[in-house]
């Protein structure tokens, strides 16, 4: 695949989870985007943000009219999202392996503040190659960061795969885990609203479509 094709595939892989998150799970709206008690969604896998922008537009965080002009000189929408430019984007991302550690800190910060807000972070199976993720997976469990949910979009992008499955990598560190079909909206909703008293990883499988 070319770079553009990879970004399109990344966007196509995340669109269902993103939609269910913003439509039914996250406690955040354009009006509450700065509320300290909001749920926070961190798109760690910043590649292919077209799906993210589309969902943000549909939910009113950004104006739909700016979508067509994306990546232009004057557009706030680039190939990787910038939290300073995009209303509703919690982090700037694009370099892999940053979102999960940031999410651990964000969730701890919410806990310190006594906030009822939760932190959700989306990573890719290829992104898990970055060692920083595994540091964060371990420390989140040790620190019992129960208000953290990591969603792994498993579209088989990892160069060498994950023998034994991705969920096992989280489970062995003490995370609660679930494995679902990432295209099944009902399954996504059920998984993302399941109770958990420790950090929680939801592996959303996306079958290759090419």
């Amino acid at each position: 695949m070319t770079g553009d094709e990879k970004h399109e595939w990344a966007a196509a892989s995340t669109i269902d989870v993103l939609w269910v998150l913003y439509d039914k799970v996250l406690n955040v709206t354009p009006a509450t985007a700065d509320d300290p008690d909001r749920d926070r969604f961190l798109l760690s896998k910043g590649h292919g943000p077209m799906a993210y922008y589309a969902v943000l537009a549909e939910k009113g965080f950004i104006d739909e009219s700016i979508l067509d002009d994306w990546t232009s000189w004057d557009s706030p929408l680039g190939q990787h999202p910038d939290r300073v430019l995009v209303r509703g984007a919690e982090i700037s991302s694009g370099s892999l392996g940053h979102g999960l550690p940031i999410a651990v800190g964000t969730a701890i910060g919410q806990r310190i503040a006594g906030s009822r807000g939760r932190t959700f972070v989306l990573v890719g199976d290829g992104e898990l190659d970055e060692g920083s993720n595994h540091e964060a997976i371990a420390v989140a469990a040790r620190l019992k960061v129960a208000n953290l949910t990591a969603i792994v979009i498993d579209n088989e992008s990892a160069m060498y795969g994950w023998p034994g499955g991705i969920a096992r990598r989280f489970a062995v560190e003490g995370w609660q885990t679930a494995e679902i079909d990432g295209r099944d909206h009902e399954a996504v909703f059920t998984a993302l609203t399941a109770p958990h008293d420790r950090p929680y990883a939801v592996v959303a499988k996306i079958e290759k479509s090419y």
Partner: protein
Amino acid sequence: MTTMRQAFVETVNDEIAADPRIAVVTAVISSNEFPQENERVVDVGIREQTMVGVASGLALAGLRPVVHSYAPFLVERPYEQIKLDIGHQDVGAVFVSIGASYDDPAWGRTHQSPGDVALFDTLPGWTVHVPGHPDEVTPLLQQALKDDNRVYLRLSLHANTQAYPVGEGFTTVRHGKRGVVLAVGPMLDRVLKAVDSENADVTVLYAATVRPFDANGLRKAVQNTDHADVMVVEPYLEGTSSHLVSETLQQIPHRIRSTGVKRHAELRNYGTAEDHDAAHDLDVVGLGSAVRSFFRG
């Protein structure tokens, strides 16, 4: 004498008890110096990239994180996290290092970080403090903890014999007419000895804060001399501040001599910090030689 590290720990522990915004993030090093029962003290294990990412998240959640480790593990290993998770997210944090360029060279190159200030210099918006005395650490740190900006505080085992006021730009320690020597942090004492040993009639400025660079202070000092000759003595990579001296004096012909940890080769020797100072001509003898050759005539 209290060390800079002790002054740092005592200040943070005083402030964390008083200010609910302050958090500390460590990667094992020094972690037991901070109150473990405080939920705002977070040790992530030996995970430096995560340390910075966690600090970013804490800042995003409204806290004022103090991030601390040995210099190469604080600055070099998680450099991209500093660039993106702190700078690009446009959040603030206070980074505090120990180890300096080669405080303990017996540990070898892995524990040396002469390029740390140069790395921060590639990133916009960072304030960089290089105190030369433990008594300078507390006021610099107290101010940093009150602010919301991005601050790097570089601590060292090496110190001058006396502290100077901090936070008001460069301090004029001595007046002369032949040129200006700018001494950064712990370099001041040996610069003064070198200048004395050469009977050099130069102005000596002292800097505990190098970013922002006190361009006005340097310009005024140069205007009061007969020659626009500036020697910069920094305890880290040579030439780190040369571009700012050039910018400051761009309207007048001038000469610069940059002195610091040499760039030309990796020094693989162990030994003591004094051995390394001598190898880099950062001891009194080497600095005296530089003063003599640069301010000749």
